[in-house]
């Protein structure tokens, strides 16, 4: 009993040390966001003994349109991720439970659509979007980011679904469950952790995507990436303000991550009960 407790203490210590090291650059960014520009680059670095200030946050909230960008980011990342899941869950089901000799080829082809560097197809996409009136529109971004993240989601879900025992699905089919019921009431609960982490992943990828979301928008559809680009690298000292701007753009997705995590854990316990 005592060894187990000691084991637990040591494991906890190591885990926290490692995690804090990994998160350190971000924690440092958080700290920097409360410094003045001059203190942000001062040496030796100041840890806690500096004049804490909210001026960076006040400044960027006054200058940039944070709420507008936040709403756009939520719509674009949320919309594209929802679309991705709506397309990827059925596709991954089909690949995992009704594979054909082409399944593997299709999977690889899907991934290969992501191999062209975005900047290499920028002009064609820009031309299409201009002609279809999709420039500076959230719809345009949702569609593009959905297409960009779909292969990733199909891959993750495919590998995840294959951990689900096929017999359970077959049993439900024998019981006369429709395809819809099979997907929604049998597969989804079983694969919830995988679905949750897939959603979380494509959401974060869409949230951070900083090529299309910068180059296809001007004013109406600008997400947080554009908000940040307004505070990145102006002439002058800018690291404290940039830190504040990135903290502001991280907090919402961190909250969503936190919520997703709840979902993840619940999914896990559900899986354990089976």
């Amino acid at each position, binding site marked *: 009993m005592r060894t187990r407790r000691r084991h637990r203490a040591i494991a906890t210590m190591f885990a926290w040390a490692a995690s804090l090291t990994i998160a350190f650059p971000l924690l440092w960014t958080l700290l920097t966001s409360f410094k003045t520009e*001059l203190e942000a680059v*001062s040496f030796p670095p100041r840890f806690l003994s500096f004049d804490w200030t909210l001026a960076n946050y006040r400044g960027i909230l006054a200058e940039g349109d944070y709420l507008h960008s936040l709403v756009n980011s939520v719509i674009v990342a949320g919309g594209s991720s929802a679309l991705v899941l709506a397309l990827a869950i059925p596709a991954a089901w089909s690949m995992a439970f009704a594979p054909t000799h082409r399944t593997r080829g299709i999977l690889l082809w899907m991934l290969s659509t992501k191999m062209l560097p975005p900047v290499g197809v920028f002009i064609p996409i820009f031309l299409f979007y201009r002609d279809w009136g999709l420039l500076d529109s959230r719809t345009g971004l949702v569609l593009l980011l959905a297409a960009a993240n779909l292969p990733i989601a199909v891959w993750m879900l495919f590998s995840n679904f294959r951990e689900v025992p096929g017999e359970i699905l077959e049993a439900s089919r024998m019981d006369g469950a429709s395809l819809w019921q099979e997907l929604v009431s049998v597969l989804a609960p079983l694969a919830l952790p995988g679905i949750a982490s897939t959603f979380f992943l494509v959401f974060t990828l869409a949230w951070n995507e900083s090529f299309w979301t910068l180059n296809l928008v*001007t*004013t109406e559809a600008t997400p947080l990436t554009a908000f940040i*680009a*307004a505070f990145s*690298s*102006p002439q002058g000292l800018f690291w404290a303000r940039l830190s504040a701007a990135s903290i502001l753009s991280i907090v919402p997705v961190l909250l969503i991550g936190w919520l997703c995590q709840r979902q993840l854990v619940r999914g896990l316990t559900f899986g354990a009960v089976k």
Partner: protein
Amino acid sequence: MRAGWALLAVIALSGCAPDEGARTTLTIATVNNGDMVRLKGLAAGFEAGHPRIKLKWVVLEENILRQKVTTDVAIRGSQYDVVMIGAYEVPIWAKRNWLKSLDDLGPDYRADDLIAPVRAAVSYRGVQYAAPFNAEGTMIMYRTDLFRRAGLTMPARPSWEDLARAAEALNDPDSGVYGICLRGKAGWGENMASILTVAHSYGARLVDDKWRPQFDSPEWRKAIDMYVGLLRQWGPPGAAANGFNENLALFSQGRCAIWFDSTVAAPFLSDPETSKVADRVGFAPAPDQGLGRSANWLWTWAFAIPASSKKVPAAKEFISWAAGPGYAAVAARRAGWLAVPPGTRLSLYQSPAYRRAAPFADVTLQSINAANPGKPSRLHVPYIGVQYAAIPEWQGIGTEIGQQFSAAIAGRVSTGDALAEAQAATRRQLTDAGYYQ
């Protein structure tokens, strides 16, 4: 009942129709530097005075702004009504008829108040195509306290040799002070801006009259050996990755004894909020080798109207306010004299209040007046520009050779090899672009 609804609809429509119909929305794309961000903040005054014009801002960092605006204008995305472009773009775009002429901004704009080289920089074949918002030259910034302690004085017209001597004397890595800071980070707008300017002051030129690269000339060799040598011997560690902002951070922390860079740095360094050495910084004119051209570049950020814009009158109204004396007065009144965009207008430098507020005013004006983008070298050149060459290929060439010189500063290649590579790269890119047919 139905008539009632119809009446309501008519009332509703008539209520908003005039407002919607006559109101023009201008989409303005601008770089995120302090002067421009301040303009955005103070532009509510313009909108109040011009109820028919509504402003929408796109504020982005320089790289992203440039790539967005260039692609938009080149393939007629028509997303912007007013764009902020640099001195480099103006002649290139004007030549392609991508810009509306701005010769007629009206008497309130006072075009004759513009400082001559700045006005020349935004004109093409005698026609003005952009309205300068702010402008910059180059100067030397140095630590007066360190100079005094070492018994040195900054000459009135320093040469690079003078700076090298001072850098050697003041270099003190043990206490964290480095002799000289210069740009090293690769990029046509980063290290190449400094290096090409320095090379021009050494009598070198990028290409000769037949567009043949000149990196094999003794002048280039001297300039590069000096530049790289200064940084390798008395520069800070990491110099190869330092651009304008990195050097500004170092100098404001008291880590550089001497820094040669844009006049834009001066207000930051003089402000105790952003500089630990605000009361110990001196300003001197850019180095001069006595070879006909001092190391003075000229840059301006200027408003322009893309040829595809359908809102030209409103756009001109905005530009003549924002780039004219109107805004300067507003900025001075609302945010103080240092908030007035510098470098564009003679009247600013004649104002006693501004000269009191800005200790660097004289050197800035001298520096801008000393720049000669039309004739950057004492030898004849076929291009315009001191720290760039206003040809479309320059961004690519400058990026590539900037990488070579950055590698030399990092010590990964010798200066001789870097020059040879630069020669080959420039020749290759100009050949590809069809310069030698």
